[in-house]
Protein backbone atom coordinates (compact mmCIF):
# COMPACT_ATOMS: atom_id res chain seq x y z
CA UNK A 1 0.00 0.00 0.00
CA UNK A 2 2.67 2.45 1.06
CA UNK A 3 4.86 1.27 -1.83
CA UNK A 4 2.10 2.01 -4.31
CA UNK A 5 1.59 5.48 -2.91
CA UNK A 6 5.30 6.17 -3.06
CA UNK A 7 5.31 5.01 -6.67
CA UNK A 8 2.49 7.33 -7.68
CA UNK A 9 4.32 10.20 -5.95
CA UNK A 10 7.45 9.44 -7.93
CA UNK A 11 5.52 9.16 -11.16
CA UNK A 12 3.84 12.52 -10.59
CA UNK A 13 7.18 14.16 -9.80
CA UNK A 14 8.73 12.76 -12.97
CA UNK A 15 5.83 14.01 -15.10
CA UNK A 16 6.21 17.54 -13.75
CA UNK A 17 9.95 17.41 -14.24
CA UNK A 18 9.39 16.20 -17.80
CA UNK A 19 7.14 19.22 -18.36
CA UNK A 20 9.82 21.53 -16.94
CA UNK A 21 12.76 20.01 -18.77
CA UNK A 22 11.25 19.11 -22.15
CA UNK A 23 11.80 22.57 -23.68
CA UNK A 24 15.32 22.72 -22.29
CA UNK A 25 16.07 19.34 -23.73
CA UNK A 26 14.72 20.49 -27.10
CA UNK A 27 16.88 23.62 -26.94
CA UNK A 28 20.01 21.67 -26.20
CA UNK A 29 19.38 19.01 -28.83
CA UNK A 30 18.73 21.56 -31.55
CA UNK A 31 21.91 23.44 -30.73
CA UNK A 32 23.64 20.49 -32.41
CA UNK A 33 21.30 20.36 -35.41
CA UNK A 34 23.01 20.77 -38.75
CA UNK A 35 20.21 22.90 -40.30
CA UNK A 36 18.45 25.96 -38.98
CA UNK A 37 15.21 24.08 -38.41
CA UNK A 38 13.96 24.01 -34.85
CA UNK A 39 11.72 20.99 -35.34
CA UNK A 40 13.41 18.68 -37.86
CA UNK A 41 16.58 16.85 -36.93
CA UNK A 42 19.00 16.74 -39.83
CA UNK A 43 22.30 15.62 -38.37
CA UNK A 44 24.93 16.52 -35.78
CA UNK A 45 27.15 19.58 -35.98
CA UNK A 46 29.18 21.88 -33.73
CA UNK A 47 28.92 24.62 -36.32
CA UNK A 48 26.60 26.82 -34.24
CA UNK A 49 29.09 26.84 -31.40
CA UNK A 50 31.82 27.91 -33.79
CA UNK A 51 29.63 30.64 -35.25
CA UNK A 52 28.61 31.78 -31.78
CA UNK A 53 32.20 32.58 -30.88
CA UNK A 54 32.42 34.77 -33.98
CA UNK A 55 29.13 36.62 -33.50
CA UNK A 56 30.21 39.99 -32.10
CA UNK A 57 26.66 41.16 -31.39
CA UNK A 58 25.71 38.18 -29.27
CA UNK A 59 29.01 38.25 -27.42
CA UNK A 60 28.57 41.96 -26.83
CA UNK A 61 25.11 41.42 -25.34
CA UNK A 62 26.47 38.60 -23.18
CA UNK A 63 29.20 40.95 -21.99
CA UNK A 64 26.59 43.63 -21.18
CA UNK A 65 24.50 41.16 -19.22
CA UNK A 66 27.43 39.92 -17.18
CA UNK A 67 28.74 43.45 -16.58
CA UNK A 68 25.42 44.85 -15.40
CA UNK A 69 24.78 41.77 -13.24
CA UNK A 70 28.18 41.83 -11.54
CA UNK A 71 28.20 45.58 -10.98
CA UNK A 72 24.62 45.84 -9.79
CA UNK A 73 24.94 42.81 -7.51
CA UNK A 74 28.16 44.21 -6.01
CA UNK A 75 26.70 47.68 -5.39
CA UNK A 76 23.44 46.22 -4.10
CA UNK A 77 25.30 43.92 -1.71
CA UNK A 78 27.31 46.74 -0.14
CA UNK A 79 24.43 49.23 0.02
CA UNK A 80 21.93 46.58 1.07
CA UNK A 81 24.10 45.31 3.92
CA UNK A 82 24.71 48.77 5.38
CA UNK A 83 21.06 49.65 4.94
CA UNK A 84 19.97 46.47 6.68
CA UNK A 85 22.16 47.39 9.67
CA UNK A 86 20.61 50.86 9.62
CA UNK A 87 17.06 49.49 9.43
CA UNK A 88 17.88 47.04 12.22
CA UNK A 89 18.96 49.88 14.51
CA UNK A 90 15.75 51.83 13.99
CA UNK A 91 12.64 51.87 16.09
CA UNK A 92 10.00 49.57 14.71
CA UNK A 93 7.50 52.26 13.83
CA UNK A 94 10.06 53.96 11.56
CA UNK A 95 11.41 50.73 10.14
CA UNK A 96 8.05 49.23 9.18
CA UNK A 97 7.03 51.84 6.56
CA UNK A 98 10.55 51.91 5.14
CA UNK A 99 10.48 48.14 4.70
CA UNK A 100 7.12 48.50 3.01
CA UNK A 101 8.60 50.89 0.42
CA UNK A 102 11.59 48.56 0.13
CA UNK A 103 9.24 45.75 -0.88
CA UNK A 104 7.53 47.72 -3.64
CA UNK A 105 9.90 46.62 -6.44
CA UNK A 106 9.45 43.01 -5.34
CA UNK A 107 5.67 43.11 -5.23
CA UNK A 108 5.03 45.30 -8.24
CA UNK A 109 4.77 43.74 -11.66
CA UNK A 110 8.08 44.09 -13.50
CA UNK A 111 6.42 46.00 -16.28
CA UNK A 112 5.24 48.69 -13.85
CA UNK A 113 8.72 49.07 -12.39
CA UNK A 114 10.13 49.20 -15.91
CA UNK A 115 7.61 51.70 -17.22
CA UNK A 116 7.98 53.94 -14.15
CA UNK A 117 11.74 54.01 -14.41
CA UNK A 118 11.52 54.61 -18.14
CA UNK A 119 9.37 57.69 -17.49
CA UNK A 120 11.76 58.87 -14.78
CA UNK A 121 14.87 58.46 -16.89
CA UNK A 122 13.31 60.13 -19.91
CA UNK A 123 12.10 63.10 -17.81
CA UNK A 124 15.41 63.47 -15.97
CA UNK A 125 17.30 62.92 -19.20
CA UNK A 126 15.63 65.84 -20.94
CA UNK A 127 16.70 68.07 -18.01
CA UNK A 128 20.17 66.73 -17.40
CA UNK A 129 20.97 65.89 -21.01
CA UNK A 130 21.47 62.15 -20.86
CA UNK A 131 19.97 59.30 -22.78
CA UNK A 132 18.92 55.80 -21.83
CA UNK A 133 21.91 53.49 -21.87
CA UNK A 134 24.19 51.39 -19.73
CA UNK A 135 24.03 53.89 -16.84
CA UNK A 136 20.24 53.85 -16.59
CA UNK A 137 20.21 50.07 -17.02
CA UNK A 138 22.66 49.73 -14.12
CA UNK A 139 20.63 52.05 -11.88
CA UNK A 140 17.48 50.07 -12.61
CA UNK A 141 19.19 46.77 -11.76
CA UNK A 142 20.67 48.16 -8.55
CA UNK A 143 17.22 49.39 -7.57
CA UNK A 144 15.51 46.05 -7.91
CA UNK A 145 18.48 44.15 -6.40
CA UNK A 146 18.92 46.04 -3.14
CA UNK A 147 15.59 44.82 -1.64
CA UNK A 148 16.68 41.19 -2.06
CA UNK A 149 19.93 41.85 -0.21
CA UNK A 150 18.15 43.68 2.61
CA UNK A 151 15.59 40.90 2.98
CA UNK A 152 18.24 38.23 3.23
CA UNK A 153 20.53 40.16 5.62
CA UNK A 154 17.88 41.46 8.04
CA UNK A 155 16.84 38.03 9.40
CA UNK A 156 20.49 37.25 10.13
CA UNK A 157 20.72 40.45 12.16
CA UNK A 158 17.63 39.52 14.13
CA UNK A 159 19.17 36.14 14.90
CA UNK A 160 22.28 37.73 16.39
CA UNK A 161 22.74 37.55 20.13
CA UNK A 162 21.77 41.04 21.29
CA UNK A 163 24.92 41.28 23.42
CA UNK A 164 27.34 40.40 20.61
CA UNK A 165 28.45 43.96 19.92
CA UNK A 166 28.72 44.66 23.64
CA UNK A 167 30.81 41.51 24.06
CA UNK A 168 33.22 42.65 21.34
CA UNK A 169 33.44 46.13 22.86
CA UNK A 170 34.01 44.58 26.26
CA UNK A 171 36.95 42.66 24.81
CA UNK A 172 38.59 45.78 23.45
CA UNK A 173 36.90 46.69 20.14
CA UNK A 174 35.69 50.08 19.07
CA UNK A 175 32.23 49.97 17.48
CA UNK A 176 33.61 49.99 13.95
CA UNK A 177 36.02 47.18 14.75
CA UNK A 178 33.25 45.15 16.35
CA UNK A 179 31.22 45.66 13.17
CA UNK A 180 34.07 44.46 10.95
CA UNK A 181 35.34 41.64 13.14
CA UNK A 182 32.11 40.28 14.55
CA UNK A 183 28.90 41.54 12.88
CA UNK A 184 30.03 41.12 9.28
CA UNK A 185 31.39 37.58 9.75
CA UNK A 186 28.30 36.55 11.70
CA UNK A 187 25.86 37.74 9.02
CA UNK A 188 28.08 36.68 6.11
CA UNK A 189 25.84 33.78 5.01
CA UNK A 190 22.96 36.26 4.61
CA UNK A 191 25.14 38.67 2.65
CA UNK A 192 26.37 35.96 0.29
CA UNK A 193 22.84 34.64 -0.18
CA UNK A 194 21.62 38.15 -0.96
CA UNK A 195 24.42 38.70 -3.47
CA UNK A 196 23.60 35.43 -5.22
CA UNK A 197 19.89 36.23 -5.47
CA UNK A 198 20.71 39.71 -6.77
CA UNK A 199 23.07 38.36 -9.41
CA UNK A 200 20.55 35.74 -10.52
CA UNK A 201 17.73 38.27 -10.76
CA UNK A 202 19.90 40.56 -12.89
CA UNK A 203 20.96 37.82 -15.27
CA UNK A 204 17.39 36.66 -15.63
CA UNK A 205 15.76 40.04 -16.05
CA UNK A 206 14.27 41.01 -19.34
CA UNK A 207 11.29 43.28 -18.78
CA UNK A 208 12.92 46.00 -16.68
CA UNK A 209 16.04 46.04 -18.87
CA UNK A 210 13.85 46.30 -21.93
CA UNK A 211 12.31 49.55 -20.67
CA UNK A 212 15.43 51.14 -19.19
CA UNK A 213 18.34 50.27 -21.49
CA UNK A 214 17.28 52.33 -24.47
CA UNK A 215 18.11 51.28 -28.01
CA UNK A 216 21.89 51.48 -27.92
CA UNK A 217 22.63 48.87 -25.27
CA UNK A 218 21.37 45.30 -25.41
CA UNK A 219 21.43 42.60 -22.81
CA UNK A 220 21.30 38.98 -23.82
CA UNK A 221 17.60 38.76 -23.02
CA UNK A 222 16.90 41.80 -25.18
CA UNK A 223 18.97 40.35 -28.00
CA UNK A 224 17.03 37.11 -27.85
CA UNK A 225 13.72 38.98 -27.75
CA UNK A 226 14.63 40.98 -30.84
CA UNK A 227 15.53 37.74 -32.60
CA UNK A 228 12.29 35.98 -31.69
CA UNK A 229 10.46 38.54 -33.81
CA UNK A 230 12.16 37.01 -36.82
CA UNK A 231 13.85 33.69 -36.24
CA UNK A 232 16.13 32.67 -33.42
CA UNK A 233 19.45 31.45 -34.67
CA UNK A 234 20.61 28.11 -33.27
CA UNK A 235 23.66 30.09 -32.14
CA UNK A 236 21.50 31.24 -29.24
CA UNK A 237 20.64 27.62 -28.49
CA UNK A 238 24.34 26.95 -28.36
CA UNK A 239 24.96 29.86 -26.03
CA UNK A 240 22.19 28.90 -23.65
CA UNK A 241 23.38 25.29 -23.64
CA UNK A 242 26.79 26.52 -22.57
CA UNK A 243 25.29 28.71 -19.84
CA UNK A 244 23.06 25.90 -18.63
CA UNK A 245 25.96 23.47 -18.42
CA UNK A 246 28.00 26.07 -16.53
CA UNK A 247 25.24 26.59 -13.97
CA UNK A 248 24.69 22.85 -13.67
CA UNK A 249 28.38 22.24 -13.00
CA UNK A 250 28.49 25.02 -10.44
CA UNK A 251 25.48 23.63 -8.57
CA UNK A 252 26.86 20.11 -8.61
CA UNK A 253 30.21 21.27 -7.21
CA UNK A 254 28.57 23.35 -4.48
CA UNK A 255 26.29 20.48 -3.52
CA UNK A 256 28.95 17.82 -3.50
CA UNK A 257 30.94 20.02 -1.15
CA UNK A 258 27.92 20.50 1.09
CA UNK A 259 27.23 16.78 1.18
CA UNK A 260 30.87 16.10 2.04
CA UNK A 261 30.71 18.71 4.80
CA UNK A 262 27.52 17.11 6.10
CA UNK A 263 29.14 13.70 6.28
CA UNK A 264 32.16 15.20 8.03
CA UNK A 265 29.94 16.85 10.62
CA UNK A 266 28.03 13.64 11.18
CA UNK A 267 31.30 11.79 11.74
CA UNK A 268 32.41 14.46 14.20
CA UNK A 269 29.17 14.19 16.15
CA UNK A 270 29.52 10.40 16.21
CA UNK A 271 33.05 10.75 17.56
CA UNK A 272 31.88 13.19 20.20
CA UNK A 273 29.18 10.80 21.33
CA UNK A 274 31.73 8.01 21.63
CA UNK A 275 34.02 10.20 23.74
CA UNK A 276 31.14 11.11 26.02
CA UNK A 277 30.29 7.45 26.49
Amino acid sequence: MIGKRKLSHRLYTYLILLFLYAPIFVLIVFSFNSTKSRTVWSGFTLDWYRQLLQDKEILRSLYNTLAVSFLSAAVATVVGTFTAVGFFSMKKRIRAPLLYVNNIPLINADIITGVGMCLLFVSLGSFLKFKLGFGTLLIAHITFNIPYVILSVLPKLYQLDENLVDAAKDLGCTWFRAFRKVIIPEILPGIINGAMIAFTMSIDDFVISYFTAGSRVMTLSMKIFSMTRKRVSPKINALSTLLFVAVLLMLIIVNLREIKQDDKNKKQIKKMKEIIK
Partner: protein
Amino acid sequence: MTNRRRFLAVPYIVWMAVFVIAPIVLIAVYAFASRDGAFTLSNFSAMGTYLSVFSRSFLLAIISTVVCLILGYPLAVIFAHETSRMQKIMIMLIMLPMWMNFLLRTYAWMSILESNGLLNRALAFLHIPPLNIINTPAAVIIGMVYNFLPFMVLPIYSVVVKIDRSLVEAAQDLGGSPAAVFRRVTFPLSLPGVLSGITMVFVPAVSTFVISQLLGGGKEMLLGDLIEMQFLGTAYNPQLGSAISLVMMIVVMIFMYFMNKFGEGEDKAVLM
Protein backbone atom coordinates in the same frame (compact mmCIF):
# COMPACT_ATOMS: atom_id res chain seq x y z
CA MET B 1 19.49 58.23 23.30
CA THR B 2 20.81 58.62 19.80
CA ASN B 3 21.98 55.66 17.86
CA ARG B 4 24.12 56.65 14.96
CA ARG B 5 24.01 53.30 13.23
CA ARG B 6 20.55 54.04 11.90
CA PHE B 7 22.01 56.75 9.65
CA LEU B 8 23.57 53.97 7.59
CA ALA B 9 20.15 53.60 5.99
CA VAL B 10 19.94 57.23 4.86
CA PRO B 11 21.63 56.85 1.44
CA TYR B 12 19.22 54.09 0.47
CA ILE B 13 16.21 56.00 1.77
CA VAL B 14 17.16 58.83 -0.61
CA TRP B 15 17.70 56.27 -3.37
CA MET B 16 14.24 54.79 -2.76
CA ALA B 17 12.65 58.23 -2.90
CA VAL B 18 14.18 58.89 -6.33
CA PHE B 19 14.05 55.48 -7.97
CA VAL B 20 11.11 53.73 -6.29
CA ILE B 21 8.64 56.41 -5.20
CA ALA B 22 9.24 58.97 -7.96
CA PRO B 23 8.58 56.52 -10.84
CA ILE B 24 5.22 55.58 -9.34
CA VAL B 25 4.35 59.25 -8.83
CA LEU B 26 5.34 59.90 -12.45
CA ILE B 27 3.07 57.10 -13.68
CA ALA B 28 0.20 58.67 -11.74
CA VAL B 29 1.00 62.16 -13.11
CA TYR B 30 1.20 60.92 -16.70
CA ALA B 31 -2.03 59.03 -16.30
CA PHE B 32 -3.89 62.29 -15.68
CA ALA B 33 -2.08 64.31 -18.36
CA SER B 34 -2.88 64.97 -21.97
CA ARG B 35 -0.16 64.97 -24.64
CA ASP B 36 0.50 68.68 -24.10
CA GLY B 37 0.64 68.30 -20.31
CA ALA B 38 -2.81 69.56 -19.27
CA PHE B 39 -4.96 67.72 -16.74
CA THR B 40 -7.38 65.29 -18.31
CA LEU B 41 -9.38 62.17 -17.61
CA SER B 42 -9.50 61.18 -21.27
CA ASN B 43 -6.81 58.51 -20.78
CA PHE B 44 -9.17 56.63 -18.52
CA SER B 45 -12.20 57.01 -20.78
CA ALA B 46 -10.06 55.85 -23.72
CA MET B 47 -9.46 52.66 -21.83
CA GLY B 48 -13.05 51.54 -22.42
CA THR B 49 -11.99 50.24 -25.83
CA TYR B 50 -9.60 47.91 -24.13
CA LEU B 51 -12.02 46.40 -21.67
CA SER B 52 -11.74 43.05 -23.42
CA VAL B 53 -7.97 43.13 -22.93
CA PHE B 54 -8.44 43.68 -19.21
CA SER B 55 -10.90 40.83 -18.88
CA ARG B 56 -8.82 38.47 -21.05
CA SER B 57 -5.65 39.24 -19.04
CA PHE B 58 -7.30 38.63 -15.73
CA LEU B 59 -9.07 35.51 -16.98
CA LEU B 60 -5.90 33.94 -18.37
CA ALA B 61 -3.91 34.90 -15.25
CA ILE B 62 -6.55 33.40 -12.97
CA ILE B 63 -6.71 30.17 -15.00
CA SER B 64 -2.91 29.88 -14.98
CA THR B 65 -2.77 30.54 -11.26
CA VAL B 66 -5.37 27.86 -10.57
CA VAL B 67 -3.58 25.35 -12.80
CA CYS B 68 -0.28 26.15 -11.06
CA LEU B 69 -1.94 25.60 -7.70
CA ILE B 70 -3.49 22.28 -8.75
CA LEU B 71 -0.21 21.03 -10.22
CA GLY B 72 2.10 22.62 -7.65
CA TYR B 73 0.42 21.88 -4.35
CA PRO B 74 0.70 18.07 -4.52
CA LEU B 75 4.27 18.42 -5.71
CA ALA B 76 5.19 20.66 -2.78
CA VAL B 77 3.63 18.19 -0.34
CA ILE B 78 5.43 15.25 -1.95
CA PHE B 79 8.73 17.14 -1.67
CA ALA B 80 8.14 18.04 1.96
CA HIS B 81 7.81 14.36 2.87
CA GLU B 82 11.05 13.25 1.22
CA THR B 83 14.33 12.79 3.08
CA SER B 84 16.24 16.02 3.53
CA ARG B 85 18.89 15.15 0.97
CA MET B 86 16.22 14.21 -1.58
CA GLN B 87 14.41 17.48 -0.81
CA LYS B 88 17.55 19.44 -1.61
CA ILE B 89 17.97 17.67 -4.93
CA MET B 90 14.34 18.11 -5.92
CA ILE B 91 14.30 21.80 -5.04
CA MET B 92 17.42 22.19 -7.11
CA LEU B 93 15.73 20.43 -10.04
CA ILE B 94 12.77 22.82 -9.78
CA MET B 95 15.00 25.88 -9.67
CA LEU B 96 17.47 24.84 -12.34
CA PRO B 97 15.27 25.70 -15.36
CA MET B 98 14.89 29.21 -13.97
CA TRP B 99 18.58 29.69 -14.62
CA MET B 100 17.98 29.32 -18.31
CA ASN B 101 16.83 32.43 -20.08
CA PHE B 102 13.07 32.47 -19.87
CA LEU B 103 12.64 33.89 -23.36
CA LEU B 104 14.49 30.90 -24.72
CA ARG B 105 12.48 28.43 -22.72
CA THR B 106 9.29 30.03 -23.96
CA TYR B 107 10.67 30.04 -27.46
CA ALA B 108 11.37 26.33 -27.15
CA TRP B 109 7.69 25.78 -26.52
CA MET B 110 7.07 27.23 -29.97
CA SER B 111 9.02 24.36 -31.52
CA ILE B 112 7.04 21.89 -29.45
CA LEU B 113 3.56 23.32 -30.03
CA GLU B 114 3.83 24.48 -33.65
CA SER B 115 1.38 22.95 -36.11
CA ASN B 116 4.18 20.84 -37.54
CA GLY B 117 6.11 20.92 -34.27
CA LEU B 118 7.47 18.17 -32.11
CA LEU B 119 4.22 17.43 -30.27
CA ASN B 120 2.19 16.95 -33.42
CA ARG B 121 4.98 14.88 -34.98
CA ALA B 122 4.87 12.61 -31.95
CA LEU B 123 1.06 12.40 -32.20
CA ALA B 124 1.26 11.61 -35.88
CA PHE B 125 3.71 8.86 -35.08
CA LEU B 126 1.04 7.40 -32.77
CA HIS B 127 -1.65 7.95 -35.43
CA ILE B 128 -3.45 10.55 -33.36
CA PRO B 129 -4.85 13.60 -35.17
CA PRO B 130 -2.77 16.78 -34.63
CA LEU B 131 -3.70 19.41 -32.05
CA ASN B 132 -3.93 23.05 -32.92
CA ILE B 133 -2.45 24.73 -29.87
CA ILE B 134 -0.03 27.41 -31.00
CA ASN B 135 -1.47 30.93 -31.21
CA THR B 136 -4.43 30.03 -28.99
CA PRO B 137 -5.14 31.01 -25.38
CA ALA B 138 -4.24 27.43 -24.43
CA ALA B 139 -0.68 27.99 -25.61
CA VAL B 140 -0.45 31.19 -23.56
CA ILE B 141 -1.68 29.34 -20.48
CA ILE B 142 0.84 26.54 -21.04
CA GLY B 143 3.57 29.16 -21.30
CA MET B 144 2.47 30.90 -18.10
CA VAL B 145 2.14 27.68 -16.12
CA TYR B 146 5.49 26.53 -17.41
CA ASN B 147 7.25 29.75 -16.44
CA PHE B 148 5.59 30.39 -13.10
CA LEU B 149 5.04 26.90 -11.65
CA PRO B 150 8.25 27.04 -9.53
CA PHE B 151 6.96 30.24 -7.90
CA MET B 152 3.96 28.26 -6.69
CA VAL B 153 5.84 25.15 -5.59
CA LEU B 154 8.63 26.81 -3.60
CA PRO B 155 6.62 28.94 -1.14
CA ILE B 156 4.14 26.12 -0.48
CA TYR B 157 6.97 23.67 0.04
CA SER B 158 8.78 25.99 2.45
CA VAL B 159 5.66 26.27 4.61
CA VAL B 160 4.57 22.62 4.44
CA VAL B 161 8.03 21.35 5.33
CA LYS B 162 7.85 23.28 8.60
CA ILE B 163 4.48 21.89 9.65
CA ASP B 164 4.99 19.91 12.82
CA ARG B 165 4.46 16.22 12.02
CA SER B 166 3.01 15.68 15.46
CA LEU B 167 0.10 18.00 14.60
CA VAL B 168 -0.88 15.69 11.76
CA GLU B 169 -0.38 12.65 13.96
CA ALA B 170 -2.46 14.23 16.71
CA ALA B 171 -5.28 14.80 14.24
CA GLN B 172 -5.06 11.18 13.08
CA ASP B 173 -4.98 10.05 16.69
CA LEU B 174 -8.15 12.01 17.34
CA GLY B 175 -9.88 10.03 14.64
CA GLY B 176 -9.43 12.18 11.55
CA SER B 177 -9.63 10.35 8.22
CA PRO B 178 -6.82 11.25 5.78
CA ALA B 179 -9.19 13.59 3.94
CA ALA B 180 -10.37 15.25 7.14
CA VAL B 181 -6.82 15.64 8.42
CA PHE B 182 -5.84 17.33 5.18
CA ARG B 183 -8.89 19.60 5.11
CA ARG B 184 -8.75 20.62 8.75
CA VAL B 185 -5.04 20.55 9.59
CA THR B 186 -2.55 20.36 6.72
CA PHE B 187 -4.26 22.71 4.31
CA PRO B 188 -5.09 25.50 6.78
CA LEU B 189 -1.52 25.39 8.07
CA SER B 190 -0.11 25.60 4.55
CA LEU B 191 -2.33 28.55 3.64
CA PRO B 192 0.35 31.23 4.05
CA GLY B 193 2.47 29.40 1.48
CA VAL B 194 -0.48 29.00 -0.87
CA LEU B 195 -1.30 32.70 -0.66
CA SER B 196 2.21 33.83 -1.38
CA GLY B 197 2.39 31.30 -4.21
CA ILE B 198 -0.79 32.71 -5.69
CA THR B 199 0.52 36.29 -5.63
CA MET B 200 3.89 35.24 -6.99
CA VAL B 201 2.20 33.57 -9.97
CA PHE B 202 -0.68 35.94 -10.54
CA VAL B 203 1.26 39.21 -10.66
CA PRO B 204 3.71 38.23 -13.40
CA ALA B 205 1.00 36.31 -15.26
CA VAL B 206 -1.36 39.26 -15.46
CA SER B 207 1.37 41.61 -16.66
CA THR B 208 3.36 39.48 -19.09
CA PHE B 209 3.79 40.52 -22.69
CA VAL B 210 6.45 38.10 -23.85
CA ILE B 211 4.50 34.89 -23.49
CA SER B 212 1.47 36.21 -25.31
CA GLN B 213 3.59 37.54 -28.17
CA LEU B 214 5.56 34.33 -28.57
CA LEU B 215 2.92 31.68 -27.97
CA GLY B 216 -0.27 33.63 -28.58
CA GLY B 217 1.04 34.92 -31.89
CA GLY B 218 0.01 38.47 -30.98
CA LYS B 219 -3.63 37.53 -31.52
CA GLU B 220 -4.38 37.33 -27.82
CA MET B 221 -3.39 40.82 -26.72
CA LEU B 222 -2.86 41.09 -22.97
CA LEU B 223 -2.40 44.07 -20.63
CA GLY B 224 1.36 43.74 -20.85
CA ASP B 225 1.26 43.97 -24.63
CA LEU B 226 -1.01 46.97 -24.42
CA ILE B 227 1.31 48.82 -22.06
CA GLU B 228 4.41 47.86 -24.00
CA MET B 229 2.85 49.19 -27.22
CA GLN B 230 2.19 52.58 -25.66
CA PHE B 231 5.79 53.01 -24.54
CA LEU B 232 8.06 51.22 -26.98
CA GLY B 233 5.71 50.00 -29.67
CA THR B 234 3.89 51.41 -32.62
CA ALA B 235 1.03 53.03 -30.70
CA TYR B 236 3.33 55.41 -28.81
CA ASN B 237 1.17 57.05 -26.13
CA PRO B 238 2.86 57.06 -22.71
CA GLN B 239 -0.07 58.91 -21.09
CA LEU B 240 -2.50 56.15 -22.01
CA GLY B 241 0.13 53.54 -21.09
CA SER B 242 0.53 55.15 -17.66
CA ALA B 243 -3.22 55.19 -17.11
CA ILE B 244 -3.44 51.48 -17.95
CA SER B 245 -0.44 50.75 -15.69
CA LEU B 246 -2.00 52.72 -12.87
CA VAL B 247 -5.29 50.88 -13.12
CA MET B 248 -3.54 47.52 -13.32
CA MET B 249 -1.39 48.37 -10.30
CA ILE B 250 -4.41 49.39 -8.26
CA VAL B 251 -6.39 46.30 -9.19
CA VAL B 252 -3.43 44.08 -8.30
CA MET B 253 -2.98 45.95 -5.03
CA ILE B 254 -6.62 45.40 -4.10
CA PHE B 255 -6.25 41.75 -5.03
CA MET B 256 -3.15 41.42 -2.84
CA TYR B 257 -4.78 43.30 0.01
CA PHE B 258 -7.56 40.75 0.16
CA MET B 259 -5.06 37.94 -0.12
CA ASN B 260 -3.10 39.29 2.83
CA LYS B 261 -6.23 39.85 4.86
CA PHE B 262 -7.12 36.26 4.17
CA GLY B 263 -4.01 34.82 5.74
CA GLU B 264 -1.56 36.34 8.18
CA GLY B 265 2.18 35.88 7.98
CA GLU B 266 2.11 35.80 4.22
CA ASP B 267 5.23 37.93 3.88
CA LYS B 268 7.26 35.43 5.84
CA ALA B 269 6.79 32.78 3.23
CA VAL B 270 7.89 34.85 0.25
CA LEU B 271 11.59 34.41 0.81
CA MET B 272 12.35 30.93 2.00
